[in-house]
């Protein structure tokens, strides 16, 4: 049986309608011969052929190559309904848009892209002044500053912006309808890895670990954030219950610095530049970089409603390419100084250049009198590993943000477009493994994406 829709063997059936129960997708099926005889040869356009091939590949993936169950399923529900059902689970439109070798001109050139003024979103922001959108045919694309995560979420859902800078758990939460009305979202690329920190008030210089943090008041930028998940994980690993032994408040980052100065709070796990800003303001010190908890953890991503890829496939492809290029450009240390200068002005981050440079170059005072040199303090890598989504979902379930059964793999594959991003990376000479599920070691504890429920059960502190 040939399972690849892109195979070149002459009798491939990848271009037959996979949603027709009369058609066999295997090359030796009897039904296929019959169907072929009964049907006049159709001349497909290349575009339609690729589209078909993608559908076939997805259908084969869903039914695991079992042609019998596919036919039984199609006969029961009908082809069009099946396309709808499978399309609702897999980002078919996005995959189709990407599979087209040549794409036409973008349907819309002047996209509106929402961003939050933090260094995590650097590639999305700098792609405008440094011309990455224009290079991919999106002249006139502008980035618009949003006042907070709830706002950027509502902008994206209401289509006031075409695409948005989001925290990596947000498109998952949106798709599942956690904390918002369920709207299918896709996240073609992660923006930054690492780059967050636990900042504590300068009076807490004697704190060694979670055991000294009982009774603390912490801030995080949003419920559905890596910040919240990592802070909870860190505290719980040290035996501190994040819901009972400390207070965790959702607060916009600039307010965190102001509150830290006033000693209304003890610390926060927040995006930069607001950790470095606390040092700059002499209000606190950097206690721990997030990369010390989980080296290479995802943080922010580039997301949009799934519908965008369907209604504007060419714009989608162009902006996806622009973002991957911009993110790779940001990951190179030699470009960071120019990037810092491009994103610091009032139109973008509106932060002192000195602070942005300290974050992006990884050469910074930590507030304890040390000058640290850590080039990996923040890094940029677009690959949205599906295992990252499974980890995030496992923590959302662990802390009660998701109730009931969670179909980890399906949600991860629907939202995080790992295969699409991997293709773009390979086209740029990067090697990416075929398996988009990786194991992670987070604070010394292994996470296996194949068994998220077992992982949740293994924690002593949880809300399940």
């Amino acid at each position, binding site marked *: 049986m040939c399972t690849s829709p892109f195979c070149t063997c002459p009798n491939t059936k990848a271009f037959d309608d996979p949603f027709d129960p009369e058609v066999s997708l295997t090359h030796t099926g009897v039904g296929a011969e019959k169907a072929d005889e009964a049907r006049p040869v159709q001349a497909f356009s290349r575009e339609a052929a690729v589209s078909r091939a993608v559908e076939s590949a997805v259908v084969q993936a869903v039914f695991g190559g079992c042609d019998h169950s596919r036919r039984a399923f199609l006969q029961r529900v009908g082809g069009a309904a099946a396309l709808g059902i499978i399309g609702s689970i897999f980002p078919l439109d996005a995959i189709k848009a990407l599979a087209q070798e040549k794409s036409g001109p973008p349907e819309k050139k002047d996209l509106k892209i929402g961003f939050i*003024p933090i260094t995590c979103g650097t590639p999305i922001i700098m792609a405008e002044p440094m011309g990455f959108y224009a290079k991919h045919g999106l002249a006139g694309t*502008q*980035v*618009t*500053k*949003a*006042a*907070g995560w*709830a*706002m950027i979420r*509502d*902008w994206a*859902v*209401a*289509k*006031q912006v075409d695409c948005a800078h989001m925290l990596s758990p947000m498109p998952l939460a949106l798709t599942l309808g956690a904390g918002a009305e369920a709207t299918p979202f896709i996240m073609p690329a992660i923006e930054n890895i690492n780059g967050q920190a636990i900042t504590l008030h300068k009076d807490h210089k004697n704190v060694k670990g979670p055991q000294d943090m009982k009774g603390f008041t912490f801030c995080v930028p949003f419920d559905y954030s890596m910040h919240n998940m990592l802070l909870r994980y860190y505290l719980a690993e040290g035996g501190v219950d994040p819901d009972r032994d400390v207070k965790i408040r959702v607060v916009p980052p*600039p307010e965190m*610095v*102001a509150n830290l100065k006033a000693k209304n709070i003890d610390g926060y796990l927040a995006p930069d530049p607001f950790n470095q*800003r606390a040092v700059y*303001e002499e209000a606190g010190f950097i206690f721990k970089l997030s990369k010390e908890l989980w080296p290479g953890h995802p943080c922010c991503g580039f997301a949009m409603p799934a519908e965008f890829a369907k209604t504007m496939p060419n714009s989608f492809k162009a902006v996806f390419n622009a973002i991957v290029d911009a993110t790779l450009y940001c990951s190179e240390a030699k470009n960071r100084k120019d990037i810092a200068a491009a994103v610091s*002005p*009032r*139109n*973008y981050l*509106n*932060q*002192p250049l000195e602070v942005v440079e300290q974050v992006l170059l990884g050469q910074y005072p930590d507030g304890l009198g040390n000058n640290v040199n850590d080039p990996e303090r923040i890094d940029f890598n677009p690959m949205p590993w599906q295992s990252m989504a499974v980890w995030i979902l496992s923590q959302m379930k662990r802390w009660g943000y998701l109730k009931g059964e969670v179909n980890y793999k399906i949600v991860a594959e629907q939202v995080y477009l790992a295969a699409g991003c991997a293709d773009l990376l390979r086209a740029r000479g990067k090697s990416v493994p075929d398996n988009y599920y990786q194991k992670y070691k987070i604070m010394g504890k292994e996470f296996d994406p194949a068994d998220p429920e077992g992982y949740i059960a293994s924690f002593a502190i949880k809300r399940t």
Partner: protein
Amino acid sequence: MATASPKDNRWMLLSLFFLLLFLGFWALISLNTKIPSPLSVAKVAGEFLAHPFYDNGPNDKGIGILTGYSLLRLSAGFTVGALLGIFWGVVLGLNPMLFKALNPFIQILRAISPIAWMPLLLYSVRDSGVTALLVVIMASLWPTLANTAFGVAHIKKDYINVANILQLNPIAKVMKVVLPAAGPAIVAGLKISMGAAWVAIVPAEALLGSLGLGYFVWNEWNNLSLPSVIFAILLIGIVGVVIDLLFSKLAGKLAYTD
């Protein structure tokens, strides 16, 4: 009652004295704390006011342009809110039964900060520009409505009787008798509405990220730039006073005596 005669300008000196006293206190406090000094605020103000109309893209515009956005939003929202308020105020004022029945609801609604409506409005209209406008409408609607209804309900019965004797049709009755008679109450309501709308506009813009003075405050706060924030506070206050003065002038032309 002893009042200062129009020619007596000594109050100006007193005002100036209070201003200097305030600036002195401020400067003294800023010496010992991290609160920015009047001088640093003046410096920032000078920079912003030197180029009020620059345009560096969608997230960075001059203070003049931003003030313009806020004023535009204010006039549009206030006009709609005021018209709605006057219309329903007249309807309720002329129908005591309806007024009594709806009054509890009006009292509850006007007690709600227009900002509290914001998430619900944004969720239902799905557009932050329209939401900001609706917040301004909400802010300006209730004071005018309540004042108009009260004014209309308390018009001298004689006026209404005369109108009835003259057999004016309902529209002429409202335009020629009811509105002029309730004029002072309506204008007082409009003035409160205008103030309420200006107060609501700043947080609405800050929360919604809609360009305007509220956006400026939020953007500068993001940079923890207190001198800019203080500059914005002063500017918002001054613009508010100017609006109020202009409105009073306009209202003076509408005033009448029995």
